[in-house]
Protein backbone atom coordinates (compact mmCIF):
# COMPACT_ATOMS: atom_id res chain seq x y z
CA UNK A 1 0.00 0.00 0.00
CA UNK A 2 2.98 2.28 0.52
CA UNK A 3 3.75 2.01 -3.19
CA UNK A 4 0.15 2.96 -4.01
CA UNK A 5 0.38 5.95 -1.64
CA UNK A 6 3.53 7.14 -3.41
CA UNK A 7 1.80 6.93 -6.80
CA UNK A 8 -1.22 8.87 -5.51
CA UNK A 9 0.89 11.62 -3.96
CA UNK A 10 2.93 11.99 -7.12
CA UNK A 11 -0.36 12.66 -8.91
CA UNK A 12 -1.34 15.31 -6.32
CA UNK A 13 -3.57 13.34 -3.92
CA UNK A 14 -2.57 13.55 -0.23
CA UNK A 15 -2.63 10.17 1.52
CA UNK A 16 -2.39 8.59 4.93
CA UNK A 17 -1.39 4.92 5.28
CA UNK A 18 -2.65 3.06 8.29
CA UNK A 19 -0.23 0.27 9.21
CA UNK A 20 0.18 -2.55 11.72
CA UNK A 21 3.52 -3.59 10.20
CA UNK A 22 5.96 -0.81 11.04
CA UNK A 23 9.09 -2.38 9.55
CA UNK A 24 7.41 -2.99 6.18
CA UNK A 25 6.11 0.58 6.12
CA UNK A 26 9.55 1.93 7.03
CA UNK A 27 11.02 0.00 4.12
CA UNK A 28 8.55 1.22 1.51
CA UNK A 29 8.59 4.75 2.97
CA UNK A 30 5.19 6.26 2.14
CA UNK A 31 4.60 10.02 2.59
CA UNK A 32 2.38 9.82 5.69
CA UNK A 33 1.74 6.78 7.89
CA UNK A 34 0.00 6.02 11.17
CA UNK A 35 1.04 2.94 13.15
CA UNK A 36 -1.29 0.82 15.29
CA UNK A 37 0.20 -1.94 17.44
CA UNK A 38 -2.39 -4.52 16.35
CA UNK A 39 -2.11 -8.05 14.95
CA UNK A 40 -2.26 -8.36 11.16
CA UNK A 41 -5.86 -8.59 9.97
CA UNK A 42 -7.06 -6.15 12.64
CA UNK A 43 -5.66 -2.93 11.19
CA UNK A 44 -8.82 -0.92 11.84
CA UNK A 45 -9.78 -2.59 15.14
CA UNK A 46 -11.51 -5.68 16.46
CA UNK A 47 -14.91 -6.96 15.27
CA UNK A 48 -17.98 -5.31 16.76
CA UNK A 49 -16.07 -2.68 18.75
CA UNK A 50 -17.37 0.41 16.98
CA UNK A 51 -16.15 2.92 19.57
CA UNK A 52 -12.63 1.51 19.45
CA UNK A 53 -12.72 1.52 15.64
CA UNK A 54 -13.96 5.10 15.55
CA UNK A 55 -11.39 6.30 18.08
CA UNK A 56 -8.67 4.70 15.96
CA UNK A 57 -9.85 6.50 12.82
CA UNK A 58 -10.19 9.84 14.63
CA UNK A 59 -6.55 9.52 15.63
CA UNK A 60 -5.62 8.77 12.03
CA UNK A 61 -7.26 11.97 10.86
CA UNK A 62 -5.61 14.00 13.62
CA UNK A 63 -2.28 12.58 12.48
CA UNK A 64 -2.95 13.66 8.88
CA UNK A 65 -3.01 17.30 9.92
CA UNK A 66 0.05 16.97 12.16
CA UNK A 67 2.50 15.31 9.78
CA UNK A 68 4.78 17.86 8.14
CA UNK A 69 7.78 15.77 7.13
CA UNK A 70 7.46 13.33 4.18
CA UNK A 71 8.14 9.78 5.34
CA UNK A 72 6.79 10.27 8.88
CA UNK A 73 5.20 7.37 10.78
CA UNK A 74 3.07 8.57 13.70
CA UNK A 75 2.41 6.14 16.56
CA UNK A 76 -1.34 6.31 17.28
CA UNK A 77 -0.99 4.64 20.70
CA UNK A 78 -3.56 2.01 19.74
CA UNK A 79 -2.88 -1.51 20.93
CA UNK A 80 -4.44 -4.94 21.32
CA UNK A 81 -6.56 -5.00 24.45
CA UNK A 82 -5.42 -8.45 25.59
CA UNK A 83 -1.78 -7.67 26.18
CA UNK A 84 1.37 -8.36 24.21
CA UNK A 85 1.55 -12.15 24.12
CA UNK A 86 0.24 -12.31 20.53
CA UNK A 87 3.57 -10.82 19.45
CA UNK A 88 5.60 -13.83 20.55
CA UNK A 89 4.51 -16.03 17.65
CA UNK A 90 3.18 -13.61 15.04
CA UNK A 91 4.89 -14.06 11.68
CA UNK A 92 2.26 -13.23 9.06
CA UNK A 93 -1.39 -12.47 8.40
CA UNK A 94 -2.42 -16.11 8.72
CA UNK A 95 -0.18 -16.76 11.68
CA UNK A 96 -0.87 -13.42 13.35
CA UNK A 97 -0.45 -14.43 16.99
CA UNK A 98 -4.23 -14.57 17.55
CA UNK A 99 -4.88 -17.34 15.05
CA UNK A 100 -2.02 -19.77 14.52
CA UNK A 101 -1.13 -21.61 11.36
CA UNK A 102 1.75 -24.01 11.72
CA UNK A 103 4.63 -24.36 9.30
CA UNK A 104 4.05 -22.94 5.86
CA UNK A 105 1.18 -20.59 6.55
CA UNK A 106 0.78 -19.44 2.97
CA UNK A 107 -2.44 -20.43 1.23
CA UNK A 108 -2.26 -21.76 -2.32
CA UNK A 109 -2.49 -18.98 -4.90
CA UNK A 110 -5.67 -20.08 -6.66
CA UNK A 111 -6.46 -18.62 -10.06
CA UNK A 112 -10.29 -18.80 -9.78
CA UNK A 113 -12.33 -16.12 -7.92
CA UNK A 114 -12.60 -17.09 -4.24
CA UNK A 115 -16.13 -16.24 -3.12
CA UNK A 116 -17.14 -15.89 0.52
CA UNK A 117 -20.53 -17.44 -0.25
CA UNK A 118 -21.66 -19.65 -3.10
CA UNK A 119 -24.58 -17.24 -3.66
CA UNK A 120 -22.01 -14.51 -4.44
CA UNK A 121 -20.69 -16.61 -7.30
CA UNK A 122 -24.19 -17.06 -8.70
CA UNK A 123 -24.89 -13.32 -8.34
CA UNK A 124 -21.64 -12.40 -10.10
CA UNK A 125 -22.23 -14.86 -12.91
CA UNK A 126 -25.75 -13.50 -13.46
CA UNK A 127 -24.47 -9.96 -13.41
CA UNK A 128 -22.10 -9.80 -16.33
CA UNK A 129 -23.54 -6.46 -17.46
CA UNK A 130 -22.71 -4.62 -14.25
CA UNK A 131 -19.41 -2.83 -14.13
CA UNK A 132 -17.20 -4.52 -11.60
Amino acid at each position, binding site marked *: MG*LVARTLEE*AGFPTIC*LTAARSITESVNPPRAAFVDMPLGYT*AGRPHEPEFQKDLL*RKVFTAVEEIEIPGSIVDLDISWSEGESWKDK*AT*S*GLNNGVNSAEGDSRQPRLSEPQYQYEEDRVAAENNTGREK
Partner: protein
Amino acid sequence: MSANGPVDYIQRTREQYARLGYDDYRWAERKETPPWAPITKPVAESNVALVASGGAYTKGQVAFHWEDDTGVRLIPSGEPASDVRVTHFAYDLEPAREDPNIVFPTDRLRELVEEKTIGSLATNSIACMGGIYSARRAEEELAPSILDSVSNMPGPPVDLVLLVPV
Protein backbone atom coordinates in the same frame (compact mmCIF):
# COMPACT_ATOMS: atom_id res chain seq x y z
CA MET B 1 4.68 2.66 22.45
CA SER B 2 4.14 -0.78 23.91
CA ALA B 3 6.66 -2.50 26.14
CA ASN B 4 7.79 -4.96 23.45
CA GLY B 5 7.65 -2.57 20.53
CA PRO B 6 6.32 -3.38 17.09
CA VAL B 7 6.72 -6.86 15.60
CA ASP B 8 9.42 -6.84 12.91
CA TYR B 9 7.66 -8.81 10.18
CA ILE B 10 10.54 -8.44 7.75
CA GLN B 11 12.87 -10.19 10.20
CA ARG B 12 10.27 -12.83 11.11
CA THR B 13 9.53 -13.59 7.47
CA ARG B 14 13.25 -13.95 6.83
CA GLU B 15 13.56 -16.44 9.70
CA GLN B 16 10.46 -18.35 8.66
CA TYR B 17 11.50 -18.60 4.99
CA ALA B 18 14.96 -19.76 6.05
CA ARG B 19 13.38 -22.51 8.19
CA LEU B 20 11.19 -23.60 5.28
CA GLY B 21 14.07 -23.49 2.81
CA TYR B 22 12.58 -20.66 0.69
CA ASP B 23 14.62 -17.89 -0.87
CA ASP B 24 14.64 -14.64 1.07
CA TYR B 25 11.73 -12.35 0.12
CA ARG B 26 12.87 -9.01 -1.27
CA TRP B 27 10.66 -6.39 0.33
CA ALA B 28 10.11 -3.19 -1.60
CA GLU B 29 12.56 -0.58 -0.37
CA ARG B 30 12.39 3.12 -1.21
CA LYS B 31 15.08 5.20 0.41
CA GLU B 32 14.52 8.45 -1.44
CA THR B 33 12.22 11.09 0.10
CA PRO B 34 8.62 10.18 -0.76
CA PRO B 35 6.55 12.34 -3.10
CA TRP B 36 4.40 14.84 -1.21
CA ALA B 37 1.00 16.33 -1.99
CA PRO B 38 0.23 19.03 0.58
CA ILE B 39 -3.04 18.99 2.52
CA THR B 40 -5.01 21.89 1.12
CA LYS B 41 -8.07 21.94 3.37
CA PRO B 42 -8.98 20.85 6.89
CA VAL B 43 -9.83 17.15 7.19
CA ALA B 44 -13.22 18.21 8.57
CA GLU B 45 -13.98 19.68 5.14
CA SER B 46 -12.26 17.03 3.03
CA ASN B 47 -13.82 14.45 0.75
CA VAL B 48 -12.07 11.26 1.88
CA ALA B 49 -11.62 8.14 -0.27
CA LEU B 50 -10.98 4.75 1.30
CA VAL B 51 -8.54 2.38 -0.39
CA ALA B 52 -8.38 -0.96 1.41
CA SER B 53 -6.35 -4.05 0.51
CA GLY B 54 -8.26 -6.66 2.50
CA GLY B 55 -9.87 -8.17 -0.60
CA ALA B 56 -13.36 -6.70 -0.16
CA TYR B 57 -16.07 -7.09 -2.78
CA THR B 58 -19.83 -6.83 -2.72
CA LYS B 59 -22.52 -9.19 -3.93
CA GLY B 60 -22.78 -9.11 -7.71
CA GLN B 61 -19.07 -8.46 -8.16
CA VAL B 62 -16.48 -11.03 -9.18
CA ALA B 63 -14.42 -11.96 -6.12
CA PHE B 64 -10.64 -11.66 -6.15
CA HIS B 65 -8.67 -14.71 -7.10
CA TRP B 66 -5.61 -15.56 -5.03
CA GLU B 67 -2.97 -15.61 -7.72
CA ASP B 68 -1.68 -12.04 -7.47
CA ASP B 69 -5.00 -10.44 -8.48
CA THR B 70 -4.08 -6.81 -9.19
CA GLY B 71 -7.65 -5.74 -9.98
CA VAL B 72 -9.77 -3.27 -8.02
CA ARG B 73 -13.43 -3.36 -7.01
CA LEU B 74 -15.42 -0.16 -6.53
CA ILE B 75 -17.90 -0.48 -3.69
CA PRO B 76 -20.53 2.26 -3.28
CA SER B 77 -19.63 3.94 0.00
CA GLY B 78 -23.23 3.86 1.21
CA GLU B 79 -23.22 0.05 1.16
CA PRO B 80 -23.51 -1.23 4.74
CA ALA B 81 -20.48 -3.27 5.84
CA SER B 82 -22.83 -6.21 6.41
CA ASP B 83 -23.11 -6.47 2.60
CA VAL B 84 -19.35 -6.40 2.14
CA ARG B 85 -17.50 -9.72 1.70
CA VAL B 86 -13.80 -10.34 2.00
CA THR B 87 -11.49 -12.79 0.30
CA HIS B 88 -7.69 -12.91 0.53
CA PHE B 89 -5.04 -15.61 0.58
CA ALA B 90 -2.84 -14.18 3.30
CA TYR B 91 -4.76 -13.27 6.44
CA ASP B 92 -7.29 -14.82 8.81
CA LEU B 93 -10.61 -13.95 7.16
CA GLU B 94 -12.86 -15.05 9.99
CA PRO B 95 -12.84 -11.87 12.11
CA ALA B 96 -13.12 -9.63 9.03
CA ARG B 97 -16.08 -11.65 7.81
CA GLU B 98 -17.67 -11.18 11.22
CA ASP B 99 -17.23 -7.40 10.93
CA PRO B 100 -15.76 -6.08 7.66
CA ASN B 101 -15.15 -2.70 9.32
CA ILE B 102 -11.88 -4.02 10.74
CA VAL B 103 -10.38 -4.03 7.24
CA PHE B 104 -12.93 -1.95 5.30
CA PRO B 105 -14.23 0.65 7.77
CA THR B 106 -16.98 2.35 5.75
CA ASP B 107 -19.62 2.17 8.51
CA ARG B 108 -17.23 4.00 10.82
CA LEU B 109 -16.22 6.54 8.17
CA ARG B 110 -19.88 7.37 7.54
CA GLU B 111 -20.26 7.96 11.28
CA LEU B 112 -17.22 10.25 11.20
CA VAL B 113 -18.94 12.25 8.46
CA GLU B 114 -22.01 12.60 10.70
CA GLU B 115 -19.95 13.82 13.62
CA LYS B 116 -18.03 16.14 11.22
CA THR B 117 -14.58 14.65 11.83
CA ILE B 118 -14.30 14.34 8.04
CA GLY B 119 -16.20 16.37 5.45
CA SER B 120 -17.56 13.53 3.34
CA LEU B 121 -16.84 10.02 2.13
CA ALA B 122 -16.10 9.68 -1.59
CA THR B 123 -18.85 8.10 -3.71
CA ASN B 124 -17.01 4.80 -4.07
CA SER B 125 -14.61 3.00 -1.79
CA ILE B 126 -11.79 1.21 -3.55
CA ALA B 127 -11.01 -2.39 -2.69
CA CYS B 128 -8.01 -4.42 -3.79
CA MET B 129 -6.15 -7.50 -2.63
CA GLY B 130 -2.81 -6.94 -0.98
CA GLY B 131 0.06 -9.35 -0.86
CA ILE B 132 0.92 -8.99 -4.55
CA TYR B 133 4.20 -10.89 -4.65
CA SER B 134 5.85 -8.66 -7.23
CA ALA B 135 6.43 -5.03 -6.25
CA ARG B 136 6.80 -4.28 -9.96
CA ARG B 137 3.25 -5.55 -10.61
CA ALA B 138 1.93 -3.60 -7.62
CA GLU B 139 3.48 -0.45 -9.08
CA GLU B 140 2.73 -1.04 -12.76
CA GLU B 141 -0.74 -2.61 -12.52
CA LEU B 142 -2.38 -2.02 -9.14
CA ALA B 143 -1.24 1.53 -8.34
CA PRO B 144 -2.31 3.00 -11.72
CA SER B 145 -5.79 1.38 -11.44
CA ILE B 146 -6.22 2.84 -7.98
CA LEU B 147 -5.04 6.26 -9.17
CA ASP B 148 -7.50 6.01 -12.05
CA SER B 149 -10.36 5.18 -9.64
CA VAL B 150 -9.42 8.11 -7.38
CA SER B 151 -8.96 10.59 -10.26
CA ASN B 152 -12.24 9.61 -11.91
CA MET B 153 -14.29 9.37 -8.73
CA PRO B 154 -17.94 10.23 -9.48
CA GLY B 155 -19.24 13.17 -7.43
CA PRO B 156 -17.00 15.60 -5.57
CA PRO B 157 -13.25 15.31 -6.20
CA VAL B 158 -11.13 13.44 -3.66
CA ASP B 159 -9.17 15.60 -1.20
CA LEU B 160 -7.54 12.89 0.90
CA VAL B 161 -7.01 9.13 0.54
CA LEU B 162 -7.00 6.78 3.53
CA LEU B 163 -5.16 3.51 2.83
CA VAL B 164 -5.98 0.53 5.01
CA PRO B 165 -3.85 -2.58 4.51
CA VAL B 166 -4.21 -5.93 6.30
